[in-house]
Structures are given as structure tokens and as C-alpha cells.
């Protein structure tokens, strides 16, 4: 009888929709559902957010405000570090989340079950980043809420500078996600490239000045030169100018950051897409869309 019921439910051949948006929504929806299935992990992440902001508050008490002011970043180390800490979570998400996800999907065999559906594989990959973005958003909001409301961090932002900061933030996401696509394409083929993405993210975090003013690198010219090669360095500089100093696009330094990041975007986005496409094609050539 069950068989009859089933055959009845499948009797009519109903037309399918043709919507990339719906497919993308489905991937994001599943990612959020999976994230919420890790309840204790979400709680721990929120607690770690609070702990890290409080930690930088106490570190700030040890920093000489005059030295920070001499670097041109005001006198609040807490505000200075908050911008770095809040956005560095996104940096990690952009650079490593997709490669982690693809590695997991290849091992579990779920990449194959997705790849045989009509979804464009790039839509799926981009949707897969949603979980990381969502976690990073919770972290970012948590950092600012705890820092501003709980610990009294001072910013000199205005509507125009906030808009500028958002533009720089989006450019940061685009450029670093493009680097994440490159990492994902390589990891898809070589399976064990994750440490490289980890090292790149860690170097980025270290050299872009998440916790200290970049001016300190003047004493180390090779490191300063390397730091300029990271899009995140320019994004962080611009966002700090906007949020801490209240600068907008009228500020030439901020505009320079926007232009540099736009240049990176033009270069990295096509490169990221090309490497990802190469990776996906290569694993289909080699028959390694799953490995268990």
C-alpha cells in the first residue's frame, strides 16, 4: 500500500523551477541549520567573544596612550584593537572556511551528491561560506556591543565614515574571499593544503596590524613590504581611519585604500574563480570528487 501511495505522489511530472536564488537560499538555509545544531559550540563562541574583548581591554590598560597617539590612532587601544579583532574573524572565515568545507564534503561524499544536482557549483561554494560569515557576524556584533556598551570604547564615527567603513569592509570580504577561492581550488585537488591557508591567514593577521599600529613595522622593512601585499592591511587601515578618526572617502589615505583594494579585487576575483574552476574540473578528471 505504501508503494501505491508513493507511486501516486510521484505520478505527475511537475515542472521544476529555474532559480539560482532559491538554490543559493537552500544552501544558506542548510548551513544555518547545521550551525544551530552545534548549540554548545555557538554558546562557547559567544563566551570567547566576550573574553577576548575583555582581554584587550586589560591589555589596553598597559599600553602607553601617548605612543598610540603618536602613531595617529587616538588614545584608546581598546577601540584600536577592537576593529582588528572584530574583522580578523572574517579574515579567517574568508580564507579558510570554504577549503575546510570542501575538504569535509569530499571526505563525507556530500560534494558528489550536490554536484549531480542542477545547482551551479559556484553558487553552492559561495553559499557554503554563509556559515562562516554568520559566525563572524555574531563575533563582530558581539565585539562592538561588549566593547562599546560594556567597556566604554570610544569611536569618532559619523554616518559618512560608517558608510566608508562598510565599503572597505565589503572590499575586504571580496578580496579575501577571492584568496579563499584560490585556497579552496588548490585544496580540492591536493586534499591536504589546509596548513598553507592557515599560514597565510596567520601571517595576514600578524602583518596587517590587527593588534599593533603598522608604523611599528618601519623598523622591519621586509616585513612592512610583505604586509603591503595583503589586502587586509589596506582594509584595516581604511576601516580604522573611518571608525576611529571619522575619516571618509574625502580623505586621500582612505581613498588610496579603497583604490588599492579595488585593484586587488579586479586581480583576485577572476583568479579565484579560475583556480576554483580548475580545481573542480581536475577532480572530475581524476575521479576524486570523493575520497573515503
Amino acid at each position, binding site marked *: 500500500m505504501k508503494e501505491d501511495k508513493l507511486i501516486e*505522489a*510521484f505520478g505527475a511530472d511537475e515542472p521544476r523551477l529555474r532559480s539560482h536564488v532559491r538554490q543559493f537560499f537552500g544552501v544558506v*538555509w542548510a548551513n544555518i541549520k547545521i550551525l544551530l545544531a552545534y548549540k554548545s559550540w555557538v554558546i562557547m563562541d559567544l563566551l570567547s567573544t566576550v573574553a577576548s574583548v575583555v582581554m584587550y581591554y586589560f591589555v589596553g590598560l598597559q599600553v602607553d596612550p601617548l605612543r598610540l597617539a603618536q602613531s595617529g590612532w587616538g588614545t584608546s587601544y581598546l577601540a584600536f584593537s577592537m576593529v582588528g579583532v572584530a574583522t580578523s574573524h572574517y579574515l579567517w572565515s574568508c580564507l579558510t572556511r570554504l577549503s575546510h568545507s570542501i575538504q569535509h564534503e569530499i571526505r*563525507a*561524499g556530500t560534494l558528489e*551528491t550536490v554536484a549531480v544536482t*542542477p545547482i551551479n557549483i559556484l553558487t*553552492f561554494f559561495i553559499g557554503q561560506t554563509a556559515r562562516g560569515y554568520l559566525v563572524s557576524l555574531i563575533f563582530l556584533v558581539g565585539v562592538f556591543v561588549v566593547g562599546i556598551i560594556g567597556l566604554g570604547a570610544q569611536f569618532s564615527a559619523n554616518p559618512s565614515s560608517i558608510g566608508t567603513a562598510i565599503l572597505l569592509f565589503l572590499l575586504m570580504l571580496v578580496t579575501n574571499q577571492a584568496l579563499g577561492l584560490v585556497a579552496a581550488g588548490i585544496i580540492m585537488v591536493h586534499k591536504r593544503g589546509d596548513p598553507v591557508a592557515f599560514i597565510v591567514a596567520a601571517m595576514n593577521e600578524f602583518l596587517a596590524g590587527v593588534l599593533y599600529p603598522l608604523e611599528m613595522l618601519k623598523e622591519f622593512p621586509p616585513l612592512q613590504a610583505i604586509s603591503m601585499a595583503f589586502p587586509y592591511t589596506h582594509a584595516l587601515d581604511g576601516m580604522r581611519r573611518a571608525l576611529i578618526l571619522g575619516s571618509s572617502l574625502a580623505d586621500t589615505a582612505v581613498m588610496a585604500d579603497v583604490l588599492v583594494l579595488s585593484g586587488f579585487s579586479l586581480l583576485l576575483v577572476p583568479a579565484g574563480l579560475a583556480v576554483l574552476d580548475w580545481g573542480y574540473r581536475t577532480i572530475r578528471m581524476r575521479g576524486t570528487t570523493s575520497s*573515503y
Partner: protein
Amino acid sequence: MYAVETMDLTKSFEREGGKGDRIIAVDHVSLGVKEGEFFGLLGPNGAGKTTLIKILCTLIIPDEGTAKIAGHDVTKEADKVKENIGWLHGETGGRALYWRLSARDNLRFYSYLQNIPSNIADRRIDALLDFFDLTKDADRLVKDFSTGMKVRVMLARTLLPNAPVLLMDEPTVGLDAAGAIETRKLLRGLCKELGKTIVFTTHNILEAEKLCDRIAVMNKGRIIAIDTPLKLSETTRKFRGVEVRVSGPQEDALRALESMSIVKKVVKVQAEEDHTVIQLEVIDEDDAMATIPESLKSNRVKLIGIQVALPNLEEVFMSLTGEGKVEGG
């Protein structure tokens, strides 16, 4: 037009650490599967069955040759192909699911990827969960499911898009005996009632014999035989023979049969619980079928049944491949 068609399909892989040395997984395979046909791929481990199925569902790009699903080329029109297939991931023990989603959410997620409208998807999901006895566990996370339950969710996922062609790699592995029987019945039903074309691999020869309209026997990347189970048995039979089932004293029956001029020799005698099965090599089966009952009757031996002796699919397989046993591949 064939539902599934391949022409000189070839795929080789570089041997791991082989410095350019290649293994030919699929070697100039040409076949055509008709619409509504239940088609089996049978072969030993490494025969190329899974590679062939993966090429058909666009997961592996072939080196040479063409493959088409519902008339669409798997390399040039992959999107069209994907709209026409339901694929069952084989031999994963239910791993190819999102374990942190419930059974229902796994199916719903798949319905989004397949672009199935929500109202239709919900109706199908309910029917599938009911059929596979998953309704009461539908909202539990898959990570807490047994292997058999996970396989049932995967089967449900394969059927969800209502695709005309189902490509299934070992569809009953991981299911218990009752689940396997139910699933076979369902697959046969889908093929018959809804006109689905099913291409499936199996290590279970009896399953292939029961389900398939035709079977392709694969070995070392090549199709070495392709026909109906009956024809395959007929073409590989080593002798002309009949199988006789009698009750009563075995000796009387053997004496009567051996005295007949049409019987060349007794090939096998097997005592069952309440009767004896005797396999005979004969000069002509039709004559033997006509004369044996009369002869046994005159010798007062009770005949239960008589039929032409054909090798079963296992014997066919062994004869074609020289292999001792069939495994998944």
C-alpha cells in the same frame, strides 16, 4: 532514442605514484539502455562499474567517447543531464548525508538544489518518509541513525527529483533483508508503473537476476557480455541438459534414467528434504523432456518436475570472467 547511451566510452586514471602509468577503468564501452528498462551492471571489484556510473552522472569526465542521458551529452550538456537523473551514492554506509541535519531537512535541502517547488517537495518528502518507515524519526538528526536508516534516507533522496533515469550504485547495500526486499519491490514498481529507466550496479547476482531486464557483465573496464539474464544463461551453457525432480528411492530413478538412450550421463545428484534433484546431460533437450516422464512412469518412479537445465547467473559470470566470486566495484 535510448534513455542511456554510451559510445566507445573510455576513461583511464593515473596510477597512484605510478609516474605516468595509467589504469584503464572504462575501456571503449558502448551500450544502449531503453526507456523503462531495468539494466544491471555486474562485475568484480575494479571492473569499472562505478566509474561508468559516475561518468553518466557527470561526476567524472571521460577521456574519449560519448555518453548521453535522455539524448543529452554528459560533458557538453551536463546541466540538462542533471535534470534527468537521480543518483544513489554507493557503498558509503550512509555517509553521503548531512549528519547535522534531520532526515526531513536533508531531503528539503536536496529539493532546493533540485529546484522542486515547495508544495510538491513537501508532498513527495512525506510519501518517501512514510514508504521508508522514517516518518517518526523524520525530525531527528541523521547522525543518530543506524546505517540502514541512513541508506533509506539516501534512497529517498535519489527518488525525490522524480527523474526519468535512476543511476544507482549498490542500492541495497546496508539494508537488512526485509529492507532490501522492499526496496527491490519499489525499484521494480517504479520501473514498471512510472516508466523509470534504472541502471544499477550490484554485487548480488540473485538481485540482478530477479530485477534486471538486461545485464551487462563488466570485467577490466570492458563489457564482455550484455543480454537478458535468460539469454546469458543459454549462451554460456556448457552442455545440453535437463533437471529432473523425483520422489521415492533415488536408485530406482537413476537406474531408469541411465537406461535411456537419450541420456548421455548423470551430471549431478542432489538429495533434498523430500525429493531428489538429478541433472542429466542429454542428446536433445526436447526429446528428453518428452520421453523421460513416460520412462519414469513405466518404472514406477514419481516425477515431481522436469525442466531444461540452465546455468545460474553466478555460473555465467564465472564462465565469462574466469572469476571465482563477484564483489562490488
